């Protein structure tokens, strides 16, 4: 009995000890597991923390670029010549539409919204594949305006085809005036939005603006999460660039040039209108221009502007510069006379007047009036090669004008070198064997019109930042240099005015207005004298010039001389400019 009692007392003691051991074991196990977990957590959190954070950030955090709106290009009166707009192209996923049985409703809804026949849409959409960009009736990709997009989106929603039809925004550059001043404006390359040629290239950095940045977490499909922008920099819209170009004058120049080329059966030509007081280019037209809206279909050669990148032998229009050199050097006056037999022998080569006629005793104004090559050679020889070429250089020949337009060339200045410098000097005196750009010649005449002060030609008048809402930087006219004295410029102007009044060539005269102008007919191909560059350059009113106008035709066939071929257009444009700028006559008519 007592032994049983002892056993009963002893059992609980053993059981408690066992329980204690098991508890200790369990506790130890838990502690080991906890320590293990803690160590593992510490490994991931501390040792690997930075790497894991980086990986996570790479997967969920993106730096997105916010495109900046490109600035507009405006003409001198604020008319938009180039604007950037956002359009929506319509992207269709035919496979998805078929899988969701939404093809027919989508076709009908889009047909109604886009104004396209159902059959036309079906032929584009009913194909296998997951990506179709819908084309319009003209075969070009559809680009919807904001209003059209809203209608299309409503139609897509109504057809329950949200997944299968998507409106994708596309930034496009539009030129409301089409081909007007295409070469001066240039275009914007669709692939990267970079300005190419013309003002688009020249002012690309100002027009492009500064893209913004959005550093944010993105959803699984890459869309930025609205609530998680970590850092955001707003895009700064590009600047608006205002030109000196006047769209109205540009249109007249282009229309007039097209008519003149057609009427004279010429190969092409250029027209430049410039303000001689500032050097601002008012119009610059060429027959080889293109429409920047559809630059993809234009030829590569049409992108370069021949008014600044092509050189030609200017012919007799250069005689005004030769006279300026002579008067400035003090070797001639308008009254200086010489005997003109109709030809002159230079370095063994006989040079003739253009009509092979001799004019006998004639003064310098009559040299211009008869456009006598012999007289121009007489002046150049009296000036001497050194002074003559120094004057040409001062007038801007043989160097770019500084207009800043891309593609401008320096031209080819004779310089009295080569195999026969004496002959070169003589030929350069009347504008042969020398290569100038139409803009260089216009600039030189502008210097004569502007009291001998050569202005730097330019097309950009001002730049206004932030899409036209910010600060405006106005570009003041820049003086290149004083080429000849004001007296010399005035004398040459008087000679040009008088010679134009009594010109042998059919100079374009306008009753009541004093006009200082010169015709030019260069024959760069000796074997084909009928293959000419016909031009007229001049400024008006001569008493206080408001514009310099150059008209040049390449290889006119019906009439080959400057006065006959280019004169009518010069007169027509000058008449329009007098009215447009409200310039009253400065002389009594008749």
């Amino acid at each position, binding site marked *: 009995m007592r032994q049983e009692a002892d056993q009963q007392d002893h059992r609980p003691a053993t059981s408690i000890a066992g329980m204690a051991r098991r508890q200790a074991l369990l506790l130890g196990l838990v502690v080991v597991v906890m320590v293990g977990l803690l160590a593992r957590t510490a490994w991931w959190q501390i040792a690997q923390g930075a790497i894991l954070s980086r990986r996570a950030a790479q997967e969920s955090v993106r730096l997105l670029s916010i495109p900046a*709106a490109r600035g*507009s290009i405006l003409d001198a009166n604020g*008319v*938009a*010549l180039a*604007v*950037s*707009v*956002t359009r929506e192209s319509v992207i269709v996923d035919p496979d998805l539409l078929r899988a969701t049985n939404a093809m027919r409703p989508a076709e009908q809804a889009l047909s109604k919204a886009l104004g396209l026949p159902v059959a036309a849409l079906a032929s584009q959409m009913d194909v296998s594949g997951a990506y179709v960009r819908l084309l319009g009736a003209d075969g070009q990709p559809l680009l919807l*305006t*904001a209003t059209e997009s809203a209608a299309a989106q409503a139609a897509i929603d109504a057809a329950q085809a949200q997944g299968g039809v998507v409106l994708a925004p596309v930034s496009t550059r*539009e030129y*409301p*005036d*089409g081909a*007007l001043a295409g070469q001066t404006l240039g275009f914007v390359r669709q692939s990267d939005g970079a300005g190419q040629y013309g003002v688009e290239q020249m002012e690309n950095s100002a027009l492009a603006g500064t893209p913004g940045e959005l550093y944010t977490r993105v959803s699984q499909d890459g869309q930025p999460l*609205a*609530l998680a*922008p970590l850092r955001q920099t707003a895009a700064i*819209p590009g600047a608006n660039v205002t030109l000196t170009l006047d*769209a*109205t004058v*540009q*249109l007249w120049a282009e229309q007039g040039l097209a008519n003149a080329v057609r009427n004279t059966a010429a190969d092409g030509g250029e027209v430049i209108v410039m303000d001689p007081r500032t050097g601002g280019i008012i119009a610059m037209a060429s027959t080889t221009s293109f429409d920047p809206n559809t630059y993809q279909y234009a030829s590569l050669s049409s992108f370069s502007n021949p008014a600044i990148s092509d050189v030609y032998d200017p012919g007799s229009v250069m005689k005004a510069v030769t006279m300026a050199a002579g008067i400035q050097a003090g070797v001639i006056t308008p009254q200086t006379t010489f005997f003109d037999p109709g030809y002159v022998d230079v370095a063994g080569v006989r040079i003739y007047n253009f009509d092979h006629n001799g004019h006998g005793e004639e003064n310098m104004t009559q040299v211009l009036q008869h456009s006598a090559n012999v007289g121009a050679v007489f002046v150049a020889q009296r000036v001497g090669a050194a002074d003559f070429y120094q004057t040409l250089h001062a007038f801007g020949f043989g160097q770019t004008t500084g207009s800043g337009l891309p593609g401008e060339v320096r031209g080819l200045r004779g310089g009295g070198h080569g195999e026969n410098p004496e002959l070169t000097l003589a030929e350069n005196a009347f504008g042969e064997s020398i290569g100038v750009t139409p803009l260089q010649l216009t600039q030189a005449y502008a210097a004569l019109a502007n009291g001998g002060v050569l202005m730097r030609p330019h097309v950009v008048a001002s730049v206004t930042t932030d899409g036209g809402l910010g600060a405006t930087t106005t570009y003041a006219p820049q003086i290149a240099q004083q080429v000849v004295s004001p007296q010399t410029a005035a004398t040459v102007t008087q000679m040009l005015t008088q010679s134009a009044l009594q010109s042998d060539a059919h100079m374009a005269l306008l009753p*009541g207005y004093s006009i200082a102008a010169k015709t030019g007919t260069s024959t760069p191909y000796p074997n084909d004298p009928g293959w000419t560059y016909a031009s007229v350059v001049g400024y008006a009113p001569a008493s206080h010039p408001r514009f310099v106008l150059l008209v040049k035709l390449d290889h006119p066939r019906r009439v080959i001389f400057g006065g006959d071929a280019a004169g009518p257009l010069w007169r027509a444009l000058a*008449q*329009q400019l*007098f*009215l447009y700028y409200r310039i*009253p*006559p400065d002389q009594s008519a008749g």
Partner: protein
Amino acid sequence: MRRPITRVPVRRTPATRRASWLQRDARRARARFARQPRPLMLLEFAAVVGLLALLYLSQVAALTSTRQTLLQEQTRQTTLRRQDADLHAQLGHLQSPAYVEQRARALGMVPANPASVVWITLHDVSR
């Protein structure tokens, strides 16, 4: 040579009495706190944590709402900029000299003959 420390009887002043009362109050407060039931203490703690969490959440909610508004405004700004650009493009087309000429011809107008223009010069005209 250091002096031996001698105990001096402290005389009870009002200041020493106040100190002894304060010590007694502290002892009683500790005793009360020890006697307080534990669940109540936890509730108080939870309430404080909850309040802090509420404050934090309200801040987050306000921030979220502001960001949402900002996003909406930015979207609106983008839409307005787009409409502005569209209108500029339309205006550019309508102001284009070629379009104006076309419209003028459609209305029966013909270009003026510059040769037929008569200039009238007014002298001494005052407004």
